[in-house]
């Protein structure tokens, strides 16, 4: 992800309304036409900022996976108490046979 134009002056990748509609669809957001226009402008600004970083010479810099200087945070493989099932299912909109009942699924599991 250290892309950018070779001359160091990267221009942000163009973003159009159709990209915003696509991303909104992936996130299951329903946007009005007015919102699509507003977010297209805002996302273009965000991408322009990312392009500033992309323009830097980052060869030899390892990608940052996490802002904390930590690795290997682990817990022992020991069982801890679970939640009470009734308490869990009380929060569900619909329950059948001690399971969460969900509406008809359209499409296949990814």
């Amino acid at each position, binding site marked *: 992800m250290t892309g950018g134009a070779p001359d160091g002056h990267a221009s942000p990748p163009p973003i159009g309304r159709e990209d915003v509609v*696509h991303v909104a*669809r*992936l996130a*299951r957001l329903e946007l009005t036409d007015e919102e699509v226009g507003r977010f297209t402008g805002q996302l273009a600004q965000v991408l322009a900022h990312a392009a500033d970083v992309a323009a830097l010479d980052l060869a030899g810099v390892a990608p940052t*996976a*996490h802002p*904390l200087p*930590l*690795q*290997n*945070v*682990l*817990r*022992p*493989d*020991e*069982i*801890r*108490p*679970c*939640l009470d*099932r009734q308490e*869990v*299912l009380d929060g569900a909109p619909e329950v*059948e*046979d*001690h*399971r*969460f*009942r*969900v*509406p*008809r*699924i359209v*499409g*296949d*599991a*990814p």
Partner: protein
Amino acid sequence: MSGTEWETVVGLEVHCELKTATKLFCGCANSFGDEPNTNVCPVCLGLPGSLPVLNEGAVERAMRIGAALHCEVHPSVFHRKNYFYPDMPKDYQISQYDEPINVGGWLDLPDGFRVGIVRAHLEEDTGKTSHLGGDGRIHGADYSLVDYNRAGVPLVEIVSEPDIRSAAQARAYASELRAVLVAVDASDGRMEEGSLRVDANVSVRPAGSDTFGTRCEIKNLNSLRSLGRAIEHEAARQVALLESGEAVVQQTRHWDEAAARTVPLRSKEEAFDYRYFPEPDLVPLAPDAGWQAAVAGSLGLLPAQRRARLLALLDGAGDGEVSAAQADQVSAVVDQGLDDLVVAAVSGGAPARLALARAANEVAADVEAGRRLPVADFTKLVSMEGDGKLSASQSKEVLGELLGAGGGDPEAIAGQRGFEAMSADSVVAIVNEVVAAHPDEWGRFAGGDQKLMGFFVGAIRERAGSSFDGKAVSAELRRRLQEA
């Protein structure tokens, strides 16, 4: 293209549920078959404010798998794979994406064929959905029920190179991989419980071509049998398309075991776009050299090494070549974890082929009891049979009692049952009687009709009862045949 010879190309993705006590990111029990939604907590239910913490036992097992498959351990990062489907309440699955823990490697099949391993990465399993109402299949269902006990159970996904060239080879790979996963204590290997799930990427190409054809991914392969059949059917479907001038469309297909065909999964209009991004709630994983060395050193013998150890014992016994049936017995005994018993019995003086046969046949019929069977008792029994103190059928009967009782003195049991092997005199006497009773058959046998060997052995067996000693009887029959 008719008349073209086609080559099948297969790569497999095997999902292995790890045999940990707890889930990958929370302390809920990892347990199959419990009451629905009893092993759930805020983390695996994706409740707001909950945070995942990585299970050390899962990392350890992932590293054991990597070591057994000759992979390199790399520093790795977890990503979120985003999708909307109710099997994950978070609406994403935590998985390793472009920086997996195990990279590269290989698995050698029993026939020596080497299959390359691309990667073996950690991820969490999803919940279990059941589709109800309508016709009960997903598209016709009225609604679905979800059990999150399995959500968050640790998985290692092992991705092979597209090195496999036939359905039989795919089965051999899955079978050997399963044995390895069980041997390194990573998996219980129970395909019927979903502990191992296989997806197959299948394509065909004209034999001799070095470019790949368009592939289809087949899901829902829950047994070795399904795996083999699905690959055969899918390859035939693709060949038929190509031979009729049509193209193979890259897609995901579902194996329908009952109808014996693959059917396309209905995809949404857009391709899946999982928007992977690094999981901000987890830090990178980078096992140091010390941990890696400790894991590699704790592996124990792998199935291939265990088979080689038994074959060496058979070779060393000096009584002839190892037959195909004996090689099968070696594989079966290793698969069932009974090879240590055989090795111990042989080092205690029992004859190797007999120890192998009793383990592969009688002990394997009750593996649990076999694991409790004291080695000394098994060794003594096999030695008695080897020395001719017990006939094969008597030995099997005593072994049955040893297995049932969790051990005992074979000599005492044989004594209680009044067992003694046929004496040389009684063998000769019974053979005499039987030969005299069937002069016509004997004439034909003596004239070279080998099929009658079975007839005489059977008749003698009937007369001798449980003291029947097949080895002594066939030797006596052959001796008389030479005299005849």
